[in-house]
């Protein structure tokens, strides 16, 4: 699938050493940008949180005056301490939660009057706990549920189910009962169920939890592909390596507020370490090692090695 638009804000700083090189065609070259014509993909709405606060019924205040704009086609990781409000924030995207005060806007339109079922065509949310999401007795039925509710039937539905299962590596399990899969594969199934809906906005709540190295690589590919297609990808994660390598923007939350927001180089850079640690987070090891060696911002292994190579080249000359 291709052709989500209109595309990410190119003025945003990207991380160093090519680890985040944007291999996508320019937004203007992608088909379907802002178009609603036959055969074209829907445009990707921008997201805006306007002074959003949220308190659960027991009085727990989870979000405080959140102001956040996510442009069309951005890839954004949300990180923060357990209980800092990350999951609460993304559940506002598809209307599962509604702000106590403030507004959530999609393309400038307040989502409050829009029913969850309608928002589901714009925002696909994969839950942190797959067991909160899965209910079918068969893997293929589970994956078909979302797109069928969006009005997809017949050959296209079958194709979507097949493609989504293949993308997460579960194509051989189409007739398996989801609860005969291990936890990590149930997480991938929950992800496939959302991928099959082909929503312009993809929100993933801790997608790498419980995954082995191959599973993490698979999730990384899913994120890269969706971003490459021009979709907005938002993921909550505690895996700082995954965050540094797969996202162009990192939002740090603490106690219901946003305390840092920028490119991985900035958020994981030495100047931000105090704020990070106050948020119970640690910068990735390449970032720490790079600072110790005076290499500058090296948030990924590739960036660290590239900086070392540059320094070795300078010395040898």
């Amino acid at each position, binding site marked *: 699938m291709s052709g989500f638009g209109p595309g990410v804000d190119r003025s945003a700083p990207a991380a160093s050493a090519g680890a985040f090189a944007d291999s996508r065609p320019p937004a203007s070259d992608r088909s379907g940008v802002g178009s609603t014509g036959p055969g074209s993909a829907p445009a990707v709405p921008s997201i805006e949180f306007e002074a959003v606060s949220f308190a*659960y019924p027991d009085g727990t205040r989870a979000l405080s005056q959140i102001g956040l704009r996510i442009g069309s086609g951005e890839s954004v990781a949300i990180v923060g301490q357990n209980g800092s409000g990350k999951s609460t924030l993304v559940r506002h995207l598809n209307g599962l939660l509604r702000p106590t005060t403030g507004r959530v806007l999609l393309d400038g339109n307040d989502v409050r009057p829009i029913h969850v079922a309608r928002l589901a065509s714009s925002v696909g949310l994969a839950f942190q706990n797959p067991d909160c999401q899965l209910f079918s007795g068969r893997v293929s039925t589970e994956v078909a549920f979302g797109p069928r509710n969006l009005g997809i039937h017949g050959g296209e539905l079958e194709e979507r189910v097949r493609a989504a299962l293949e993308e997460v590596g579960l194509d051989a399990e189409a007739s398996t009962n989801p609860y005969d899969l291990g936890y990590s594969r149930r997480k991938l199934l929950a992800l496939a169920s959302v991928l099959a809906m082909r929503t312009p906005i993809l929100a993933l709540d801790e997608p790498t939890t419980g995954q082995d190295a191959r599973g993490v690589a698979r999730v990384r590919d899913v994120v890269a592909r969706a971003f490459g297609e021009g979709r907005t990808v938002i993921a909550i994660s505690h895996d700082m390596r995954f965050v540094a390598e797969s996202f162009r923007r990192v939002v740090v939350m603490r106690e219901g507020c946003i305390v840092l927001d920028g490119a991985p180089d900035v958020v994981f850079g030495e100047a931000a370490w105090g704020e990070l640690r106050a948020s119970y987070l640690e910068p990735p090891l390449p970032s720490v090692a790079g600072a110790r060696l005076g290499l500058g911002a090296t948030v990924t292994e590739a960036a660290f090695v590239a900086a070392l190579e540059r320094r070795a080249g300078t010395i040898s000359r």
Partner: protein
Amino acid sequence: MSVGIRLDGVSYRYAGAAATSLRNVGLELEPGRVVGVVGANESGKSTLCLVVAGLAPAVIGGRLEGSVRIDGIETAAMRPHDLAQRCGLLSQNAATQLSGTTATVFEEVGFGPCNLGLPVADVVQRVWAALGAVGIESLAPRDPARLSGGQGQLVAIASILALRPRYLVLDEPTSELDPAGTKLVAEALARIARDTGAGILLVEHKTDVLAQIADEVVVLERGAVAFSGPAAAVLADPRLVELGVESPAAVRLERAVRTSGLEWSAALAKALS
């Protein structure tokens, strides 16, 4: 009587399953030691936890071959409450472990000790100690049903700790925790093993945690032990990558530097420490 958990020639097949999930597994866990278990998804790690804790086959059925002994007694011959007191199991999905019957985190963590029939003062003392071990005293009055995923995981860990079993079997206890929470739990487990002599079997994808606290590491591949040994040696073994296990960050970074042809130096090693 020999102490520790000992598995000899253990094979296990789930009820109704065509394939065997564990194949001829041997493993030893001595009191006061931390043994890490790694392996790709579906390599048998969670099944191993169920077998060691005696739930498979006693509770979930299936067919077990070989011997699983805790302190010299076959688990098949132990009564459930005796087994539960000797060996605490934290399941991979911690949310399924909370009782769903309590109104506060404090009561949830006290649920197990209360069922052991302990005096109230002892239960209270155990609950505060367990909450303190994982740094969640402030959650004590909260509703367990309204916690974040990571907070729920910490409550589940505290609930196991409050039972003070002689052995802990933990299936990815830090999977949903932030880096600080992960560090806190790792430190707490190391302290518990050292100070109380508990033996800990720790399934972890975060090999950095194992590098920090494990004495030995066992690598599973398709239900069998691929190799095992002292933690530092196993975690630096390049075979881990082929087996779908991510090496610790420092090992990966050193490997990336060496692979690029750059010279490895003491200064680099120090920067990664």
